[in-house]
């Protein structure tokens, strides 16, 4: 209440919007973006931000998605094959975005969509892998996940994935950095409250890769995780590292039931 009064006194449109989000936490309003207690980052975003996500022509991430649609048809590597030569229309990727990361037997560990794309490039196309945060890999990851847009996340943590899930969970709950905070402190214990000017979300990953206004660019989940780690003044891990893929499994399973929103738009 004190916050609300303060915001009103300041008379700023920004603070009014924040207060608005805080007081309109209504299950009916959010449709598929709220499942039980799980809330997509969409429900924490400003109305203007949500409007960009709702219009694919306004969402700048689609520049990379459109470029990836061309890459899908383009033969590369010594095998002289394109994605389409084996997978035909990209619609064949429907459902993939709901299931990853998966346990990948030949590696004896987890694999996310970015790594699946590169594994296919190297092993089947005999092409160079794309760099993790490159436009090509971001675009192709978004194109693949886009085929599952609206489908509920249903990541499995059974069988051989189980120990990696446990590692991801331990990471999520482990304090780190000079600020000595765990992911859970903000995104479980305090989701929905203000951290100064920022509204803390549940940290749900179902919209990644996402167009982030702060970045003025589309970016990967692992880029976001690096940013989070740096905010608590902790050494980040590399994008694509085992630590982050394990964490990706934990938070993706936590998002089970929420719709795939890739490419979402976030603050």
């Amino acid at each position, binding site marked *: 209440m004190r916050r609300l009064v303060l915001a009103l006194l300041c008379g700023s449109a920004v*603070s009014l919007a924040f207060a608005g989000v805080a007081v309109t936490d209504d299950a009916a309003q959010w449709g598929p973006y709220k499942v039980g207690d799980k809330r997509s980052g969409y429900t924490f975003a400003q109305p203007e931000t949500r409007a960009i996500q709702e219009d694919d022509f306004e969402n700048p991430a689609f520049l990379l998605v459109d470029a990836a649609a061309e890459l899908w048809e383009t033969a590369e590597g010594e095998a002289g094959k394109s994605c389409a030569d084996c997978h035909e229309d990209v619609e064949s990727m429907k459902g993939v975005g709901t299931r990853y990361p998966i346990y990948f037997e030949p590696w004896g560990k987890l694999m996310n969509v970015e790594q699946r794309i590169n594994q296919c490039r190297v092993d089947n196309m005999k092409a160079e892998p794309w760099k993790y945060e490159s436009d090509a890999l971001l675009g192709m990851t978004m194109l693949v996940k886009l085929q599952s847009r609206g489908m509920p996340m249903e990541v499995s943590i059974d069988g051989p994935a189980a120990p990696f899930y446990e590692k991801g969970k331990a990471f999520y709950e482990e304090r780190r950095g*000079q600020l000595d905070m765990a992911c859970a402190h903000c995104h479980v214990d305090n989701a929905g409250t203000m951290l100064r000017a920022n509204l803390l979300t549940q940290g749900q990953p179902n919209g990644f890769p996402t167009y982030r206004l702060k970045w003025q660019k589309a970016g990967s989940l692992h880029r976001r995780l690096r940013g989070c780690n740096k905010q608590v*003044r902790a050494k980040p891990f590399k994008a694509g590292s085992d630590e982050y893929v394990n964490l990706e499994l934990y938070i993706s399973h936590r998002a089970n039931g929420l719709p795939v929103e890739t490419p979402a738009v976030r603050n």
Partner: protein
Amino acid sequence: MITRIIASLAALSVSLGFCITAALAEEMVAYKVVDDIEIQDSLTGKPGDPAQGRKLAIDRKLGNCLACHSLPIPEQQFHGETGPDLAGVGSRLTPGEIRLRVVNPKLVNPDTMMPAFYRVTGLNRVMKDFAGKPILTAEQVEDVVAYLMTLKED
């Protein structure tokens, strides 16, 4: 009565030329926790400057108390909500109790989200630029304590 003595870091490694010492902003001051509830003595032996402490509470790179707490600082638009409102805290706690909570609140509540502002050990994967350094210097801790003590109940 339980008394904890936290040893100060020795300047021993200076002669070894290791970067650990170069990274220290200052030598950590020893302090004594009394009855598990307060650090009675000023870390600097002097009272802090409340005006400076107020600035530190606002500064996003230093105290940044406003990240989590509401404070009677009306010119700052955004105040955090994850921690308790600190208006009137100077009437509710003693200076020693506030000092302990700024220095290392985990000695009061091991599960708290709040960082220890004067601690360099027992931390996990601290970024290189911050390794071996407390968030606030001893002098800055005293400034924040002095500021918070000015916040009296009406």
